């Protein structure tokens, strides 16, 4: 074999070998950490959902009784998502909807929106976002109290014209430096309230078996 070809081959095989070893290492790490990552995410999710509800307002396992909601533009969903029904002694007290604000500064902002049976917001939390750290991330409850501006609000409080950030003539405060982010969140929460208003009977209906994963009844009203 001519030396140039030989050298090329050795180089290619070396690079391939490194790629294979690297991939194997990553596959092993992935397999090892996967269960722990899923467990962490589930615990995180359970805690995050509970944060959107008043303490003591439910006595069911929210994650276990999660049901599936068909995609709906009002929730910004392009695929089925979960919603969680909070019940106390078999009576529905509130629902927690998963919603997406598609118009964040950098991509989707995923929200959990708790709405009491009277139509008032019990709490909103951001479950995932890619907003600028240190700038748009004040929508996280861990970073600031901003997200509490929604507590107790409803479709009529403020009226539709007030469901905007102050800069756009609405009633919601925002922090200087990042307006796009809160604007997207305010609009998404407003749409979720409209969705709740349209579907509240179905959303608040307690299924005969609370555990059932009722895909059918969650499809379309």
């Amino acid at each position, binding site marked *: 074999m001519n030396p140039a070809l030989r050298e090329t081959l050795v180089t290619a095989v*070396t*690079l391939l070998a*490194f790629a294979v070893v*690297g991939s194997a290492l*990553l596959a092993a790490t992935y397999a090892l950490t996967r269960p722990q990552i899923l467990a962490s995410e589930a615990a995180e999710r359970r805690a995050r959902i509970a944060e959107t509800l008043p303490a003591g307002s439910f006595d069911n396992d929210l994650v276990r009784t999660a049901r599936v909601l068909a995609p709906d533009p009002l929730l910004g969903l392009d695929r089925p998502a979960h919603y969680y029904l909070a019940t106390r002694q078999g009576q529905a007290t509130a629902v927690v909807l998963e919603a997406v604000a598609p118009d964040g500064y950098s991509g989707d902002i995923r929200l959990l929106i708790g709405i009491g049976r009277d139509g008032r917001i019990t709490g909103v939390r951001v479950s995932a976002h890619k907003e600028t750290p240190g700038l748009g991330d004040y929508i996280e409850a861990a970073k600031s109290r901003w997200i509490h501006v929604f507590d107790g609000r409803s479709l009529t409080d403020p009226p539709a014209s007030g469901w905007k950030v102050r800069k756009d003539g609405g009633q919601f405060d925002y922090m200087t430096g990042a307006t796009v982010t809160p604007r997207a969140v305010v609009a998404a929460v407003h749409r979720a309230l409209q969705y709740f208003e349209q579907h509240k009977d179905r959303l608040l209906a307690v299924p005969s078996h609370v555990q059932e994963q009722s895909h059918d009844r969650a499809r379309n009203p």
Partner: protein
Amino acid sequence: MIAPATRELIVNGLWRQNPGLAQLLGLCPLLAISNSVVNSLSLGLATTLVMMVASASVAVVRNLIPHEIRIPTFVLIIAAAVTVVDLSMNAYVHPLYLVLGVFIPLITTNCIVLARVEAFASKRSTAASVLDAAMMGLGLTLVLVVLGAVREIFGKGTLFSGLDLALGPAARDWVVTVVPDYQGFLLAVLPPGAFLGLGLIIALKNWIEAIRQARRGTPAPVIQPAA
């Protein structure tokens, strides 16, 4: 007594050739994340860990890598190390992982990691390479923490806020409110604060160097950024 060669590596990493102050490498994450002590410390330590793993791996296999493909191979090794750290942090320190988010994968593109691998680990013994990576990483972490502290005090009037995300709920009470009822100074928290703060810290280092040189009676060397 520390061997002179070891001492040299320590002094280079922490002070003389400090990545943040003298080499001016790896500034992208340094400027982006350094708005609080906790973020700075966490990302600094994650970067240090990646540098040590990457430098050790490269030093071990340095004689197997053909010269022409050394850069792709180094990048592959660094990317693998970063992904392992990324997955491990996601699994075992989940709350912190949620905070640092996008910055962990970005360690791959931090040029200080590749710079130390190329300039040091590809030519020296494994032990020396690991020490060099550790010291360079700690040097960067130190600068990050100082810059984070300055920006957090001026920007938010606190120190160590969010420490519970890294160390568990017990650390929630460790937040030090330096200035009570502080209204916040946005410039310090936003990117310009990072540039101004880093500039001031570099000036301070050069000033200290100048004074030390003057005592020895020789003119201070002008510090040039690498590349």
